[in-house]
């Protein structure tokens, strides 16, 4: 039977006529995944905020909960010694991700998008770290930056006892060793996203630009860059989210202590550490939640509102 184009009016009328079975099916099909997402992601997110106003040790039941008002937050912002370095490291992570892997990934993508020989091989090599787990990148960090056995110290002649550089143990150096390896992985990720974006830029536009005498930079700045806008937004979101999620590499190295504190490791230490402090950990998590929602909600809102209009 051929499909007859229906007027919008008739189509709407037809859509209203679901059988009872269809209605049940559709409700279940959307309802079950939605319920899971709400129960395991959004309710815990709300509970995080609620719990942050209580004192609660991990072992006790609900009867052990004591209202604490803003006490947890007061402690975090005034006397908790781990908080300033953690925030500092998260911001540093964000800044480095924004200023190194993002532009470098774009630069590599633009170069690889030119029709040069062996482009696929270059792409694959740069992309390799993206499939590796962040935990494995943590082990790699230990291998590469190990003081006596590592690649870096052995290559630069700093593996001897008299001029040893303790990359992982020195609290002023170790965050940089970690960031180098984090960038190693992030650059390939960003490059792949930009390459996909560049593929959708009409090559004839660039050709036209260069026929009109635009140099490479001008063609990029005025033709390619504006066309990459949707991808740029995705890269900004990925950069922010990955910096806030950063956890695995530092946890492998020293569980996020001694120069490697991050918000994520402080939260974890407060639930599975020796002293389980649910309320206090929740207050830290609420700070992380608020920062990430400040980026996520506007992104999701504008994406889908635009989607809806088109």
């Amino acid at each position, binding site marked *: *039977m051929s499909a007859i184009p229906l007027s919008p009016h008739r189509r709407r009328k037809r859509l209203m006529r679901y059988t009872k079975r269809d209605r049940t*099916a559709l409700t279940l099909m959307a309802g079950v995944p939605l319920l899971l997402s709400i129960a395991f*992601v959004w309710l*815990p997110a709300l509970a995080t905020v609620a719990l942050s106003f209580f004192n609660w040790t991990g072992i006790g039941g609900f009867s052990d909960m004591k209202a604490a008002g803003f006490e947890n937050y007061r402690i975090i912002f005034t006397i908790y010694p781990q908080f300033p370095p953690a925030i500092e490291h998260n911001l540093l992570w964000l800044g480095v991700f924004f200023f190194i892997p993002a532009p470098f990934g774009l630069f590599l993508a633009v170069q690889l998008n030119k029709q040069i020989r062996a482009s696929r091989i270059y792409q694959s*090599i740069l992309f390799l770290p993206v499939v590796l787990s962040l935990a494995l990148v943590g082990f790699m960090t230990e291998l590469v930056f190990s003081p006596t056995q590592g690649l870096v110290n052995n290559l630069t002649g700093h593996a001897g006892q008299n001029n040893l550089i303790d990359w992982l143990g020195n609290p002023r150096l170790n965050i940089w060793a970690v960031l180098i390896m984090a960038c190693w992985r992030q650059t390939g990720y960003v490059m792949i996203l930009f390459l996909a974006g560049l593929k959708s830029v009409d090559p004839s536009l*660039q050709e036209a630009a260069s026929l009109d005498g635009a140099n490479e930079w001008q063609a990029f700045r005025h*033709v390619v860059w504006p066309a990459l806008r949707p991808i740029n937004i995705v890269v900004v979101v990925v950069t922010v989210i990955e910096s806030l999620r950063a956890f695995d590499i530092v946890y492998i190295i020293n569980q996020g202590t001694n120069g490697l504190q991050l918000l994520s490791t402080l939260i*974890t230490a407060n639930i599975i550490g020796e002293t389980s402090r649910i309320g206090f950990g929740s207050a830290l998590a609420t700070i992380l939640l608020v920062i990430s929602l400040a980026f996520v909600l506007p992104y999701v809102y504008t994406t*889908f509102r635009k989607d809806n209009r088109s």
Partner: protein
Amino acid sequence: MTAATFTGGQASTEQGAAQARKKRRGSRPMRAFLHCFLIVTCVVWIAPVLYALYTSLRPYADTAVHGYVSVGGHYNLSNYTTAWNEADLPLYFKNSAIITIPALLITLWLASMAAFVVARHSFKLNLLMLMIFTAGNLLPQQAIITPLYKLYITIPLPASLSDSGHLDDSFLGLILIHVAFQTGFCVFVLSNFMRTVPVEITEAARVDGASEWRQYWQVVLPLCRPALAALATLEFTWIYNDFFWATVLMQTGSNRPITAALNNLTGQFFTDNNLISAASMIVALPTLVVFFALQRQFVSGLTLGANKG
């Protein structure tokens, strides 16, 4: 200057276009310089992996004598057999399979159903649902872990499913959180993909009397095979690579999937970097298979999500 001013002159003869293409690729010395730059970058990029591979092939005693960055001594697979046997790697691989495969299948199944409702129908709540799914996937795991951990140690499970008698420390618990967390991304990608399937196809099926379920299962889902393959590759890698959920929600060491288990093992068994390298290579193996055999699917999974962003 805008793009419009550049495209204004439409004087692109065949010759001119060829010239422009050549210009875009750059002159000969420029291209040589570009290749040099890319080769150096790639050497730096692959160095850590090659270093780990090289170290893993040498016995500890040899590297102790010759140093780590050196040539000479023995090359064999003894580190691999030691890591495989002494660290119980087969057990942890099995744990990873028990968690990853069901989580992957359930995620794709649930996500494709939700995507079908969102993409093929115009209910008022669709937009809100998409936002809930997508935003949920973008939250940092650590922002929700505290109540989740409390929830997991409270919900009781029969002893056959969990060593602790609760949802924590159970395979089911890890599968559930992976499904709940990853469904968001898959709904987003699949609903974008399903929107590209022409309306007429399901209209025709409906006229023929197909129920909503049959339209989903027999009409739309088979057409989504490329997107499902891409997502399966991506999600397999992500779930297999998970470290955080398993570290916090699976406290019993012997139940951990391999990515998280390696962390305990380094403290317990491994004292030398050669052995850690070998174990890392073994753990990386499934993801390296993805890299060598399924790279196209992996990349298209990533970019399916990004392009519509």
